[in-house]
Structures are given as C-alpha cells and as structure tokens.
C-alpha cells in the first residue's frame, strides 16, 4: 500500500520541476524502477489517476522502465539475472554479488509543454 505515499511525493517532485520550468502542463513522466524496489505498476497507476487530478500532471502518460535485479559472477566475470531460490550464476553455479542494477527508484525525465 506504500504506492499511495510514493505517488504523493512523486507528483510533488514533478510539479516542482514543472513550475520551475514554467511548464503549462506535463505530458509524460518517465520512471526507472528496479525489481528490488517492490513497486507494483498497476497500483502506481491507480494512485496516479486519483492524485494527479487538478495538478499539472493530470492526463500525463506515466511510463515505467523496469530494471531486473542483476548479480555479478566473479568467476565468469559476467552479470546475470538470478532465477530460482538462490543467487547462483547460471553458468558456473557460484553465488555472485549483487550489483546496483535492480535497486533503481528514479524520475528519469519528464516531457513538458511550454506556451
């Protein structure tokens, strides 16, 4: 249920940026969300439709680029997306080390319209 709080802050940040740029309205919001963030797209969209009413972002497209949780295998020197119940490298079976990929929680860009 934390998508409600997330969307409240997200819309505040977008509106602040849009006002700073003298935007007439926001046409699109582009997010990058890693799989470790446990954010549900449908739930975000539900709260977006509800909370964007009356803001500069009303009617904007909300786009989410998901980033999978990636690990680095020091033996094979490759990165991989772990599957199954542990974090083993699919090639050599060793357990690798988590990378930053998959933890993203960002507003990457917005598309605005200026008069």
């Amino acid at each position, binding site marked *: *249920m*934390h998508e409600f*709080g*997330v969307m409240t*802050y*997200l819309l*505040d*940040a977008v509106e602040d*940026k849009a006002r700073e*740029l003298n935007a*007439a309205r926001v*046409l699109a919001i582009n*997010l990058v969300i890693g799989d*470790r*963030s*446990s954010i549900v797209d449908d739930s975000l969209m539900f709260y977006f439709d509800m909370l964007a009413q009356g803001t500069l972002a009303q009617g904007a497209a909300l786009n989410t680029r998901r980033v999978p*949780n990636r*690990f680095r295998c020091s033996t094979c020197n490759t990165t991989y997306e772990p599957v199954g*119940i*542990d*974090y083993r490298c699919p090639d050599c079976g060793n*357990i*690798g*080390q*988590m990378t930053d990929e998959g*933890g993203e*929680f*960002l*507003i*990457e*860009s*917005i*598309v*605005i*319209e*200026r*008069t």
Partner: protein
Amino acid sequence: MVVEHIHVVKNILVGNDQIAEINRDRFTAANVLALNVMASPGAGKTSVITKTIEALRDEMQIGVIEGDIAGSIDTNAVLAAGANDAVQINTGGNCHLEANMVQKALETLDVNQLDVLFVENVGNLVCPTHWYLGEHVKMCVLSTPEGHDKPVKYPQIFSISNVIILNKIDLIEMVDFDLGSFYQTVRALNATAPVFEISCRTGQGLPAWIDWLRAQKQAYSQA
C-alpha cells in the same frame, strides 16, 4: 506551444529525503547516533531495543521513537527498560515511517539529552526500505522462525542494512533454520554488514552486539 524532454534523474522520494536531511542535521547537532530498526512484526525489534537499553542504561542516554499502526505497548516497554525518553508515532494504518513523521516526533523528544536514538519502524520488510528518515545506521532484525529464505524473498532490506541481527537463535534447532543458506544469500546481497546471532530470551550473543553499538557510538562522536 513547445514540447520539451527534460532530464530529471532524481530519487522519486526526493521530498521525503529533504526532510530526512533536516532530521539528520538535528541528530548531528545533538551528537546522537540514530538507528532505523526494521523487521517483520514479531521478529523482536522491541526486545532487541529493551535488552540494549538494559545493558547500556548506566553509560548512555537512549531514546526511542516507536512507530506502530496503533497503541503504545512498545513505548511503555522501552520506558520500563530504562529509556531516557520515548515518543509514540501511530501511523494510522500506514505500513512504514516517513521522514516527516520523525520530524514531528522530534518536536516532543529532546534529542539534546540523548546519546543514541532508536527509531523503531512499523513491522514490515518491504515498505520501510524506501523511506530514509535521517538515520546513521539501518538495522535489520530477522528471527529464526521466519525462515532462512527471507533474504531471497526480501533482498532490498538485507542489501541496504548496515547491521543485521538474527534473533531467537535459541530456537534454531526447532525451526530448521539453515544458517549456511542464510549467510550465502545475505553475503551475496551485502558483503560488509556485520551479522549478530542473538537471543533476547537467553541473552546469548548480546554482548557482541552491545560492543559493536558502543564502538559505533564512539566512532560517531569522534568523527
């Protein structure tokens, strides 16, 4: 009409993080080490805090901010253990604490009197991980009956924690908790955070945790 594509690249919760930085400045000004305690309901967050207070009450002043959906049971428990001060935040159903709730609690909690502040988050392994509160230390408590598979199911909390407590270690034989598997996955997610195996019921392992916290406080105060 001009349409422009603007790069932002900011944390979605930038508004929360700004308030968290204000909290952090207050902790720093008061020379108080702040810990954000995160765990599932029933892992033993309050027990770890009360045992820590009992061990350190003669050498430092410890305060607690208690985040709960409702009630004040935990606040009463930490005060009975010897906390210098405690403030209850009732989130009214919210699944995590946010920086502005801690900011409000700091209106009534006098951090200048404290050496260490525990912020006990709402019992939840997912939501609290997003919300920076201004803490210096992110602390995760897991208990053996929850199972050794929790790091795989909830990787984010184990990856961001600065210290991990494995509580109820006295029950390990009864609940088939596989320590080897637990450490393998925790270390894949987090190479550096110390892990303390403790039992709040028997006292096993508590001295090592207390020593670590004491050292953190000393290092923080000298920085």
